[in-house]
């Protein structure tokens, strides 16, 4: 009986969280939780707020710019002490900059890849260069943020010292995973209707879409896990913060949503057919050292979608690293913080000179 009431309690808490997120429009007006690592906003413009986290200890020469995905808030990268990507990297001597994407307002529906990469991301890189005094920066992209970082590296290779891509969706021709299957069967007209109806792709739509991919987990499984792990020190705190992040969906700018839909359907990035402004994105222009981290149990980005990266770029120094975890495991799992991030830090440190 106590199990049922305990799981029921967590379930109710989750339901209230979802209702609250629906009421407040998901990630737009919701506040981020208290950050683990202190930061300072050094630049704000367009849809970018650039946060700087000073390194703890001797500093590497090249600053590291983290590019997170556009669909949720980036506080997952600095969740709790001991499970914070930013904390781990600053402790390893990196001056870390994080792009905190500002959620698009209805008036921002015109923003597409060109504005996000050639304006916002380019400005963030420029601000990082000015603030750090470094000529080139290392980019670390996560999920869709990695795709944006890769496109930037292809268009502005002169500014990128190293590129680390985590769980990057690249080859869109695969459709084994539920996410790929459902995306493939959403027609262009449907995507246009979404944009015509709401201007931007609404946050609740993204939330509902991702919840649909694992219905049993989101309806029951995670609450049972919370009940069974409640006695583990710090588990519930991390669970609640992670849940808060899960509900931090933000809208996607209308044009960006349409362009992303086209990119997925035409697989144009790896075919060399994607254009931003007047320029075609040629991935062979990426010549910097590249580290490609793949989640073997990733159910959001098919590992086979990411693994092709080294074949598409012209870098001499490139390598795939597989990590036995899921999509978000790389950011929050204890194992990732014990093994993966020190390894990523070591790779970046070795490529600092």
């Amino acid at each position, binding site marked *: 009986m106590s199990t049922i009431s305990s799981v029921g309690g967590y379930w109710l808490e989750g339901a209230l969280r979802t209702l609250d997120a629906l009421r407040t429009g998901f990630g737009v007006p919701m506040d981020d939780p208290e950050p683990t690592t202190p930061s300072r906003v050094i630049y704000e413009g367009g849809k970018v707020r650039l946060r700087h986290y000073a390194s703890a200890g001797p500093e590497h020469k090249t600053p590291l710019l983290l590019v997170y995905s556009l669909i949720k808030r980036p506080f997952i990268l600095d969740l709790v002490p001991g499970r914070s990507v930013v904390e781990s990297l600053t402790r390893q001597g990196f001056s870390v900059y994080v792009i905190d994407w500002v959620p698009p307002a209805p008036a921002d529906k015109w923003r597409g890849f060109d504005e996000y990469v050639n304006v916002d991301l380019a400005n963030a890189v420029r601000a990082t260069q000015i603030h750090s005094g470094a000529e080139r920066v290392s980019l670390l992209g996560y999920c869709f943020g990695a795709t944006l970082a890769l496109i930037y590296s292809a268009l502005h290779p002169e500014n990128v010292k190293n590129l680390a891509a985590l769980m990057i969706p690249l080859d869109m021709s695969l*459709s084994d995973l539920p996410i790929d299957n459902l995306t493939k069967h959403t027609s262009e007209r449907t995507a246009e209707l979404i944009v015509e109806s709401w201007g931007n792709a609404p946050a609740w739509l993204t939330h509902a879409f991702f919840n649909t991919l694992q219905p*049993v987990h989101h309806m029951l499984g995670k609450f049972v896990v919370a009940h069974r792990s409640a006695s583990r020190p710090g588990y519930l705190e991390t669970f609640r913060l992670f849940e808060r992040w899960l509900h931090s969906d933000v809208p996607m700018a209308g044009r960006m949503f349409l362009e992303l839909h086209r990119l997925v359907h035409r697989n144009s990035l790896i075919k060399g057919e994607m254009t931003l402004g007047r320029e075609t994105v040629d991935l062979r222009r990426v010549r910097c050292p590249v580290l490609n981290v793949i989640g073997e149990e990733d159910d959001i980005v098919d590992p086979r979608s990411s693994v092709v990266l080294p074949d598409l770029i012209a870098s001499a120094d490139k390598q795939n*690293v*597989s990590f036995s975890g899921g999509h978000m495991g790389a950011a929050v799992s204890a194992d990732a913080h014990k093994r993966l991030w020190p390894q990523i830090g070591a790779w970046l440190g070795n490529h600092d000179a």
Partner: protein
Amino acid sequence: MAALQRKEGNASVPASPARAALVKHLADFAEAMLVDLPVAAARRLLRDGGELELNEAGWKAYDAALLITNGAAARILSSPAFGALAGRTFGMAIGLQRLNAATAGAVFATLWPGVGLPTAAEIDSMRDELRGMRDELRAARMEMGVRERLIEQQLAMQGGILTERVAWSEPRNASSRSVETPAPLAGSPAMSAMGLFRMPAFVGWPIPEPARERKRNVHN
């Protein structure tokens, strides 16, 4: 969780062997339901085993059932037939939502005036008008307040000047009036509240004498 492995070049990462996993989960579930749970329950009845064993068997069955359900859901969601159906349904739902919004707008726009009710647009415009009127009222109130304060200030200043004039016109007594004595400008409580102490008195622009003015006009 396994240690990090480096993969060279385009070494393919194998897709999860879903079928093998499903078979394993089914076997686990069957074992838990048909062996572990009955044995644990029987032991508990015979007071041979404890609550813990039964709990563990229950959780084992739950875990296996959850994995089977997750696997089944993933298989359904990954099937092209379901994808096509979901895609079409979603497209239709969005299309219907758009159509519904457009039709409702068109139908009710003509229906409401017919039965003497205002349309949403009219209510909106009334709201805007009301909002505008509220703003105007707020602005007028503020202006009134400012005017009142100005009048009070002016009165206070005039009172101060009068007091000063009276003070200066009185027979001077060197011992009673020292140089350090402040000018009695800040006599009014309103002025004190506004912090208008020892401000120079402005008595208005000098009015030209009417006779001189007239004379000048005559000569011009």
